[in-house]
Every structure is written in structure tokens, then in C-alpha cells.
């Protein structure tokens, strides 16, 4: 295990810090939340919580290959992190549009979630996109076919890797949620009450928390989801990766959609309802009917669904709502 400093606390004395947080949380919500534009002056944050427990060793299929769930999740998270850097790349500059945390639970021990950044960034929780670009574990090279104006050409691409496939120990999910809550509190205070797009937390797991009861886990999630900027509450999205049994359920509207599966119902209760600006993208990307409510969870998701889910939660080219917020600069 690498050295892990505690969650960085603000330079403010405790009383002033608490007052600053109270001020943020008491600022009235905007009439149209989730519309803040994401710029250097008003960044947002992404926190990825990755289950690295022993059961992530089970097999799944991704892009036609049989591999462990941990390996598939690592590939998908690495692609998402690459997308985050790309959205910030302007010419030769990587702009500070977000802060990004990568938290693992299991993997290194039974009890404690940890930041997964390594090398020079070990011990840090949030990285700027420029720091993320420099924090790769390695860069893989792959040969791919690309089409330029209808003409196919073979190019060698470099694919950065930040997350290795790891599957060890139990599933201290509560520790990860609590760490996310702590990080988001610090982050909100640092934004000094500015109109910022609220942080998005994406939890990827294949199992049940081993460090808390359902009620304890829900209480943690409620505290996390209650945090907010004036632009809206923190979004907590939960993904249950598939064991290739059971029906896949994506963005359900009601708990009843989940049948009697207690674990799926717990994930449902843990998750945020997705804001209205996301609805059209969710319906379009997943081929779902237009509804008035989508809860940000999926149960028994296969890897393709996981990719799409990540596209909804982060500013990829597939998420036009997020891209519109990110691009005051179209």
C-alpha cells in the first residue's frame, strides 16, 4: 500500500471551514439546476469509486474478449479518464475544467478505501486534468485503422493507463462513500460558493458492501447526495456490473421496476434521480422510452451498458447535455 495522507483539510480553522460549508449549503438552488457552465473559473468534479474486491476476478466479456471484471472495468475507466483529459485539451494546454478523484475499495485491504493515483501523485485525492495527463502508470501502444475523409489508414495510437486490474480482499464500499463525502465537502468549500456544476460520483461494484449494513450505507449516501452547490445536488450514480445472470436494468423509474432483488433495490435507493437535462440523452443512448424520471443506477449491467453509463455521467462526446455545459466554447 502506498502512503496515504488523510483527506486534505482546508487551511481554514475548523469553525470558519464549517461556516463556509454551511454558507454553500444554505445558498438557494438556482431555478434551473445543472445548467452551470464548466469553465476554468467554475470547474466541476468527478469521483470514481472502484470496487477492487476479490470477486472482481470473475469472468465477463468485453469487446469480444473474455476477461476479468476488474480488467474490463479498468479498460473502461481508463477510456473515461482519457476522455476527461481530451475534453480539457485546448491546443497544447490542458485546461482545469474539473478535479478528478479515483478511489479504490478492496484491492489493498479489507477496511479502507484509498486514492488510486500513483507515482508523483500518490497520496493526492483530486487531480487536475493536467496532473491526470502526467499521472499515467504506463502508455500502451495499439495499431488501429482510422478513416480520414473516407480513406482508411493504419495508425499507431498511444493509450494511457491509470488503473490496473486489481481484485483482492472484501468490499469496504461504505468507506469509499464516506471518503467521497469528505472529499466533496472539501471541494465545495474550495469553490467558495461559486455557481459550479455539482460533483458527480460514479460507484462501480459487483458486490455487496462488507463494511456496513444497508441502513448504514444508505445513510452515507444520503449525506453525500445532500451536499450541493447552488447549481444542484451531488449526483451519485451506481453501477452493478454483471455476473451475466439476471435481467439488466438501466435508469429505472421506480423501485418496483427492480422486482424483488434486494441488492438492486439498495442500489436504487443509494442513487440520485437524474436531472431533467440528462433525460433526452439517456433515452437516446439506451433506446429507452421518454419518461419523467430516471434514477442513476444500473443493475446487472454488461460491459457495453457500463460504457454507455459512463458516457452519460461524464462529458464524453456522447453526452450532449454535459458537452453543452462544458462548451461555452462551441
Amino acid at each position, binding site marked *: 500500500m502506498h502512503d496515504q495522507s488523510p483527506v486534505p483539510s482546508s487551511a481554514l480553522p475548523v469553525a470558519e471551514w464549517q461556516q463556509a460549508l454551511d454558507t454553500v449549503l444554505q445558498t438557494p438552488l438556482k431555478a434551473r439546476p445543472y445548467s452551470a457552465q464548466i469553465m476554468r473559473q467554475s470547474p466541476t468534479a468527478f469521483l470514481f469509486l472502484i470496487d477492487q474486491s476479490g470477486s472482481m476476478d470473475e469472468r465477463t466479456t468485453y469487446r469480444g474478449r473474455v476477461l476479468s471484471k476488474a480488467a474490463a472495468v479498468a479498460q473502461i475507466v481508463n477510456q473515461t479518464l482519457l476522455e476527461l483529459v481530451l475534453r480539457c485539451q485546448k491546443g*497544447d494546454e490542458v485546461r482545469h475544467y474539473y478535479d478528478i478523484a479515483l478511489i479504490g475499495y478492496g484491492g489493498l485491504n479489507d477496511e479502507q478505501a484509498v486514492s488510486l493515483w500513483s507515482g508523483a501523485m500518490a497520496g493526492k485525492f483530486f487531480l487536475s486534468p493536467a496532473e491526470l495527463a502526467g499521472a499515467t502508470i504506463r502508455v500502451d501502444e495499439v495499431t488501429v485503422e482510422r478513416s480520414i475523409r473516407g480513406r482508411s489508414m493504419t495508425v499507431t495510437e498511444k493509450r494511457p493507463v491509470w488503473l490496473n486490474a486489481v481484485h483482492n480482499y472484501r468490499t469496504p464500499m461504505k468507506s469509499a462513500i464516506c471518503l467521497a463525502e469528505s472529499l466533496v465537502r472539501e471541494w465545495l468549500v474550495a469553490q467558495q460558493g461559486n455557481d459550479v456544476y455539482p460533483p458527480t460520483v460514479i460507484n462501480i461494484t459487483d458486490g455487496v458492501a462488507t463494511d456496513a449494513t444497508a441502513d448504514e450505507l444508505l445513510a452515507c449516501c444520503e449525506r453525500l447526495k445532500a451536499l450541493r452547490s447552488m447549481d444542484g445536488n451531488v449526483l451519485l450514480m451506481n453501477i452493478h456490473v454483471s455476473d451475466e445472470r439476471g435481467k439488466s436494468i438501466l435508469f429505472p423509474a421506480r423501485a418496483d421496476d427492480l422486482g424483488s432483488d434486494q441488492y438492486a433495490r439498495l442500489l436504487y435507493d443509494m442513487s440520485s434521480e437524474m436531472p431533467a*437535462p440528462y433525460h433526452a440523452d439517456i433515452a437516446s443512448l439506451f433506446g429507452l422510452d421518454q419518461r419523467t424520471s430516471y434514477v442513476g443506477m444500473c443493475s446487472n449491467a454488461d460491459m457495453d451498458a457500463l460504457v454507455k453509463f459512463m458516457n452519460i455521467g461524464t462529458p464524453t462526446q456522447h453526452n*450532449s447535455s454535459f458537452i453543452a455545459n462544458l462548451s461555452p466554447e462551441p
Partner: protein
Amino acid sequence: MNSRWQSVGKEAPTYLDNEDATRADDRAGIWAVADGAGGTGIFVGEWAQHLVRHVPAHPFADLTALSTWLDGHWKPFFDRYQPRAKADPFIGYKFMYEGSGATLATLHQRDTQLYWLIYGDAVVVCYQSATGELQAANADLRQFESAPYLLNWLDFPKAAGMQSGVWSHQPGQQYALLTDTLGQYVLMAYAALSGDTASLAAVAQQPTALGQRAQTHLTYWTDRTGQFDELVWNPLRNALSSTDAFLAYTQQLRRQQLLGVDDYTCLLIDA
């Protein structure tokens, strides 16, 4: 015809970081604005500059003409920027997967005819101050609800992204080419002040920043119907006197929440 134009970037403190590009050739009767699309792609400001610099002397007849023109001009840009892109894995990946995209609006004068072309959501308008009538090449406010079509060296242009037409010049008629967000402001204000509020009201229903802006326009211009010339067009004209005036003008509109965050360009042409 004579033109004047200004362009400012979106972000404090300098507003110099600007991915819009402008060309004003009054003698040849060629005017163009391009808006480098920052949401995707790389070297987009450079691509916007490249596009306006190479706008041909004659109007684009149709999509084939636009595509043929792009065929002749994409490769030098690619050859110039690919080595720079290859030096960095992130830039290289983005360059090859997303290319460089920009919207483009052009206006060509041929005798008394003004030929306009738009690819994407830039705005071209023709305004007659004597009557207060504004004709927009692309007046539909709903165009701003979705991502714009972009001219990209990576792909061929699409028919759905292109609009073109022609106006006959009349005495007193003025023309403006605006990048999307400033064009959006002019179109929203005109819709509100001319009493044509149906499309503005429809956009105002959207749970987005654009919807909020449409609602602000509906409210802000209440009881000022018929004052577009005085309240919108002339202040825009006057703001083109200097970069400082244009920056102050756009910042004032921002404070009033009538204008979204973006790079802003306005190229105004009159006789």
C-alpha cells in the same frame, strides 16, 4: 460596401483566448466568420482561421461546391498540425479521433445580390432600419438546442448542416455575420421585441441554460415591443467602434443574463 467587426474571447482576465475567426474583404465583397468548436476537436481556432482565409472569391453554389472546396484545403492544414499532434499522446489521439471543427458563415456580394452560406449555427442577418425588419438566414431558435454541425477536415460536410440563400440589396439594408451565442442574443431579442414569441417560449421550456436565457429575454423585453432598432441593433453597431467597447457591451449583456458564455464575433456590413 463597408464593414466593421469586433471579436472577443470569453474568459477573464484578458479575453484574448478566442477561437473565432473573421475575414472582411470589402473590396472583393467577401465576408466570413468561423467559430472553432471547443467542445470537441483540437487546433480549432487555427482551423477557423484556415477556413476563413481560404473562402473562395465566388459564392458556394451548393454542398458539392463546399465539399470540393474543403477537399482542396484540408490537407495543408492536416500536414501542418499532424506532426505537432503526434508529439503528445493526448493531442495525437484527439487530433485523429475528433479532428478540428468549426462553424462557418460567409457572405459574398455580386452586384446587388448578397449570397449567404451557413454551415452550423453561426447567424447571418439582413436588417432594414427603415422598417425595423430583420431577416435571418437561420431564424429558428431551436437550432441552438443541439450540437451544431461542424466543418471538420476529418469528414465530408453534410447536407443537413448547410443552408444558403441570396438577398437583393436595398438602400439602407445592413448585414451582420455573428458567431452563435451573439447571434442567439440578436434572434431572441428580435423575437421578443417583434412580438413573435412562440419559438422563444418553446425554447424557454427547456431545463437548460439556453432555456433560462430564452425566459430572461421574454421577461426583459416586456412592454418594449417595436424598439429593436433603439435597444438592440444600434447598441450592437455602436459597440463595434473598439474592442474595449465591444467587450464592455458583451459583458453588460452577460450581467443582464441575456447572453451566454462564449467567444463573441460580430461583422457588420452596410453601404
